């Protein structure tokens, strides 16, 4: 079994698993935080123009920084609105044609799928849960819309972008300049990563058509004798972990984004199904393991409350599906409790309406309380109620007639990277007043990198960095590992110092931990001892069982028998049936299965053999002991000689020139053996 890591970081989760000669791609995420390397377009033409000229002037002598780069606080930024996206690594190395399956864990890890299905020779099957497919498609479409809207804006740097950005030199410059890379494979990564132009709408459409949707606990049977099963991961709508399993205890668990928080909307994580794997691949743990999501949520509420009370606007850049499904209900209820029910909550997203509509449909994928609401029948989420009360409004996009109230309001808007989408317009609108607040709550973006371009002029509004990450944190992960007690554990190298060695209390299994990094291949030997086969009627009726004694336990019945048949594969099962030989003894030419003769020692000893030889007329024996060899020379009447060599009571060799004598001697020996078992 082999695992290769094709993701740049846990964020762009992508692993290639090779098992039983089947190639399975686990997730295909996108390194979305790479777009933080771009300058927000709203800043490009105004605030930084002077700054840029100055810098160019300063650096004239060096001429190292091309026009397209701007340096701010020692970070390089790309000044272009034609954004390129960092997709999975090693695309030119992996032969996608040989990949049999792609398994998706949730909609966050599907952003590179159109690159694979539409731009490579991939022709395997893709599995994802139904909500992952629906919501994923909406989110990719949203990204596409934001991207196209932005790239259509006029920008002076667009024309020469393509050539420059694809050059790995520039990437390297950016990487070296901006990141502390301690990855040993850094050079390899640079070689194999490529930033790409985003796919188009048709690509998304065609790509998603190829996905086969599945439900939790739906078993996908693979011809090579194993099954793949998605199980609930509790992280988001339809999010799953994947179980790869067979009847003989090979069990591989791919654990992606998972959440143990019980008060959240998704169906809770299914832990039981994942227990005792041979291999656990644990990826995508909490980005902010030291923070408690509940505390951050409470702080978010109280800060929103304060902002409202001061008449300010709370701007909350978010992903259009995910934690927002927890927040809308929660915040509306909090505001109502404070008596602020007249403060409107806006959800500004081209796909917001659809996301909320789908969320209400997927009651089977939701927690118990929400499931029960659907049986009343009521929509599982309270969004429609809040909308009816006038507290909540869905806005498709910001346009001239979007006129939020003058008073306090709360605005959820994408994109959380602050590089794309309507958030940029709103940020310029609200950031100059200190009564307003900007809440940074999506965990995958670094606070400093998010904000550092926005410094000239500095943002006047209050900024609250409150990342809410419901994923399993390190201490939960360690507990979970104890509970699951895997034999082998593979974790991204970033987690190496936080995941500890365990001896599981119940099973006494010591977990072997192997960290993996980008572009690394790890081999794990899973010692499978058995495969499942079936004996069919044709052979079963010939079976004659031979009872033998158990040397250790005389009470136990053991029957043995030699099987001579042929193995074939029918309906994904190995079938052992009778070979032609059994049916047609005469026609030996058509049989390719000549019976083997096995012999086991029963009560063979040299004394027994000599006694037996003499009894059977072999009187003239010369016995000599040569080291460990015992040699019996049999001198026949015609003075011919046959020799029996015995070594260690286990290896016997008969040397003679007559087949009849050989036969005779063989039979004498077989008397002391278990043989002819068929």
């Amino acid at each position, binding site marked *: 079994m082999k695992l290769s890591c094709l993701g740049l970081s846990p964020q762009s989760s992508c692993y290639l698993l090779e098992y039983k*000669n089947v190639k399975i791609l686990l997730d295909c995420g996108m390194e979305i935080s790479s777009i933080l390397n771009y300058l927000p377009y709203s800043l490009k033409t105004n605030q930084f123009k002077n700054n840029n000229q100055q810098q160019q002037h300063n650096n004239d002598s060096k001429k190292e920084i091309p026009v397209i780069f701007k340096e701010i606080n020692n970070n390089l930024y790309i000044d272009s609105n034609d954004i390129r996206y960092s997709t999975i690594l*090693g695309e030119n190395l992996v*032969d996608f044609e*040989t990949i049999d399956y792609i398994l998706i864990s949730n909609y966050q890890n599907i952003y590179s799928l159109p690159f694979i299905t539409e731009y490579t020779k991939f022709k395997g099957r893709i599995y994802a849960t139904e909500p992952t497919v629906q919501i994923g498609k909406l989110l990719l479409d949203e990204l596409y819309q934001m991207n196209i809207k932005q790239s259509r804006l006029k920008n002076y740097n667009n024309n020469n972008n393509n050539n420059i950005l694809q050059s790995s030199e520039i990437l390297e410059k950016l990487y070296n300049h901006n990141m502390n890379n301690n990855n040993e494979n850094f050079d*390899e990564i640079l070689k194999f990563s490529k930033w790409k132009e985003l796919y188009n709408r048709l690509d998304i459409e065609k790509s998603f058509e190829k996905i086969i949707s599945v*439900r*939790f*606990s739906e078993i996908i049977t693979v011809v*090579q004798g194993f099954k793949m*099963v998605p199980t609930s991961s509790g992280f988001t709508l339809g999010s799953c972990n994947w179980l790869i399993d067979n009847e003989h205890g090979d069990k591989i668990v791919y654990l992606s984004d998972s959440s143990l928080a019980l008060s959240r909307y998704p169906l809770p994580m299914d832990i039981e199904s994942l227990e005792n794997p041979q291999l656990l691949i644990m990826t995508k743990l909490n980005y902010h393991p030291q923070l408690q999501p509940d505390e951050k949520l409470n702080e978010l509420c109280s800060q929103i409350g304060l902002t409202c009370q001061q008449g300010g606007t709370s701007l909350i850049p978010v992903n259009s599906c995910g934690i927002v499904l927890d927040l809308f209900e929660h915040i509306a209820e909090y505001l109502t409790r404070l008596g602020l029910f007249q403060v409107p909550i806006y959800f500004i997203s081209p796909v917001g*309406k659809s996301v909320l509509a789908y969320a209400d*449909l997927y*009651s*089977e994928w939701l927690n118990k309380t929400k*499931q029960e609401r*659907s*049986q009343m*029948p009521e929509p599982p989420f309270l969004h429609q109620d809040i909308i009816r009360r006038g507290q909540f409004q869905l806005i498709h996009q910001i346009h001239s007639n979007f006129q939020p109230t003058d008073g306090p309001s709360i605005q959820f808007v994408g994109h959380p990277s602050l590089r794309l989408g309507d958030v940029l317009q709103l940020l310029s609108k609200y950031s100059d007043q200190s009564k307003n607040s900007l809440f940074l709550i999506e965990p995958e973006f670094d606070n400093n990198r998010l904000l550092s371009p926005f410094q000239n002029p500095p943002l006047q509004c209050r900024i609250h960095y409150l990342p809410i990450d419901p994923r399993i944190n390190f201490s939960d992960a360690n507990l979970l590992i104890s509970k699951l007690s895997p034999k082998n554990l593979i974790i991204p190298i970033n987690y190496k110092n936080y995941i500890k060695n365990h001896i599981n209390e119940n099973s006494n299994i010591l977990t072997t931990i192997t960290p993996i990094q980008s572009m*690394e291949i790890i081999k794990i030997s899973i010692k*499978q*001892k*058995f*495969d499942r*086969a*079936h*004996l069919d*009627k044709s052979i*079963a009726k010939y*079976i004659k069982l031979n009872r033998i004694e158990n*040397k*250790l336990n005389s009470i136990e*019945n*053991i029957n043995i*028998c*030699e099987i001579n048949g*042929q*193995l*074939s594969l029918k309906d994904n099962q190995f079938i*052992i049936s009778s*070979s032609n030989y059994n049916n047609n003894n005469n026609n030996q030419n*058509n049989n390719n*299965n*000549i019976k*083997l*003769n*096995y*012999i086991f*020692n029963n009560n*063979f000893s040299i004394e027994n053999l000599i006694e037996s030889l003499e009894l059977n007329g072999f009187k003239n024996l010369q016995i000599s002991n040569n080291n460990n060899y015992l040699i019996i020379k049999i001198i026949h009447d015609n003075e011919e000689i046959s020799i029996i060599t015995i070594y260690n009571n*286990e*290896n*016997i*060799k008969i*040397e*003679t*020139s007559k*087949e*009849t004598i050989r036969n005779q001697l*063989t039979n004498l*020996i077989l008397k002391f053996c278990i043989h002819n078992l068929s």
Partner: protein
Amino acid sequence: MFDCGMHMGYNDERRFPDFSYISKTKQFTKVIDCVIITHFHLDHCGALPYFTEMCGYDGPIYMTLPTKAICPILLEDYRKIMVERKGESNFFTPQMIKDCMKKVIPVGLHQTVKVDEELSIKAYYAGHVLGAAMFYAKVGDESVVYTGDYNMTPDRHLGSAWIDQIKPDLLITETTYATTIRDSKRGRERDFLKRVHECVEKGGKVLIPVFALGRVQELCILIDSYWEQMNLSVPIYFSAGLAEKANFYYKLFINWTNQKIKQTFVQRNMFDFKHIKPFQSHLVDAPGPMVLFATPGMLHAGASLEVFKKWAPSELNMVIIPGYCVVGTVGNKLLSNTSGPQMVEIDKKTTLEVKCKVHNLSFSAHADAKGIMQLIKMSSPKNVLLVHGEREKMGFLSQKIIKDFSIPCYYPANGTTVNFNTQKPIPIDISTKLLKRQLVEYSESQEQKLLKQSQNLISEGQETEEELFNFNQSKKLNSPVVSIPMQGIMIQRENHHLKLLDFDEASKELLLKEINLDYNLNLEIINNTVNNNNLSIEYLQKELQKQLPIGFMITRNSQDQTILSIKSIQIQLNTANNILKLQWSHKDDNLSKILIQCLKSLSIVDVK
């Protein structure tokens, strides 16, 4: 237990199944591992509260989420009619329905649920009504599919039934329309719309008695989009209460409807009807044309009957009964004579002159004969059992199934038991080591060409050391090997699976010492012309190979060209001493016997 239905035609104890067939001592929980309900129709779930709350069954109950949501509403509705209107006692109470439904475990489509260590079940989409499912149940290597009611053609709001080719030992299928090949659905729809349109055009009122859930949603979609298309303004009403709630279920469980509705629901939910409004009782006397959907469907009570009493005397009006009516109901009486005006007894005191037109339109979604055959083909069962149909028609259909599919087909009478012979291959755990060895041996004998293919069969390919980043070491061939020889030792021990092991493994496992018995046989070459002139190692190889079974390759030893080898056997030609030396181990004794026989028949050696 598949389904737990109620017979709507009886008003005594016969309406519930005779559970004494299962256990005379009422040990139902012991006998039954689980109850599976396929859909919310009362003939499939109507006896469930009786079984759980009054007979004492306490085990698991499974149904889909929509069925779990809708089933209690229909049960309560029916209970009200039976108890409150008909004065039945000995019927389950509202509390019993609630308690019963609490025990229900919802299952998702295609989700495999492990009921216990042995039994697992899986639901497949059945069409028919919202949330209807077919169920696959498996114990060990034996399996059965029970269809419940299903529908093989998609309609306005539901998709068609679908199942994997799972080859169950038994398929139990409903046969409501066992021998009918029904005319096109479109035709019936057109017919329905034409009648309604004609009636309202002339100023008449159309009454459509319906059950709150099921077909009525399909009719509403049909009529709502027709109104839209024809730009009609005649009001359409839906009797309030339950009906609105019912539509809400469809909105919430839109995942269970068909593809088209699912795809468009964000823009427009098909169940948000544009032209259909809630009915208010004063509207019954309002002048002018209108269309009204009113419950219940059989005109035996409630709103539909009240309206009927007012509208029936006018020949301008029309009643369309889109379903089946139980004997004794007003609906049934109407349908028994649709030809013209008639006197109909509403109850003991009231008789009504019915002048309005009466039509029966079957929209009930069951598979017809063609659909049943399709499902059999789709699932490839080993036996078929027909239920839920008329005996004669089932007999006819079973003949067709036996003829077309060459599989046994049964249609037992109620209360009888059918036994099925399921001859199953015996499961055996085959040692991966043995499997690998046999595959490699076979592949080598096939001159390597199958090696790659056969490696696809075995658990782990022969891994070679690869360079880092070499992702493309082998392109794969996917066609499997047809059959390969398999030889090993089978071990049967108490409380263990059967095992098939390699010889070494078997000796280790059973603590048996293997004896390696080898032979060295020096045979004298016969002096004759053939041998003296032609006996070369090449000749020997060629002649012996001719005699050997296919798959056994004699090879020349690369170091010593005078040696031929096959498996453990070595043949050395020593022309100088006139000796042919044969070496082999006892394992290959049978093969060596063949070789010796060949040598003899070629008159090369004298075998004494």
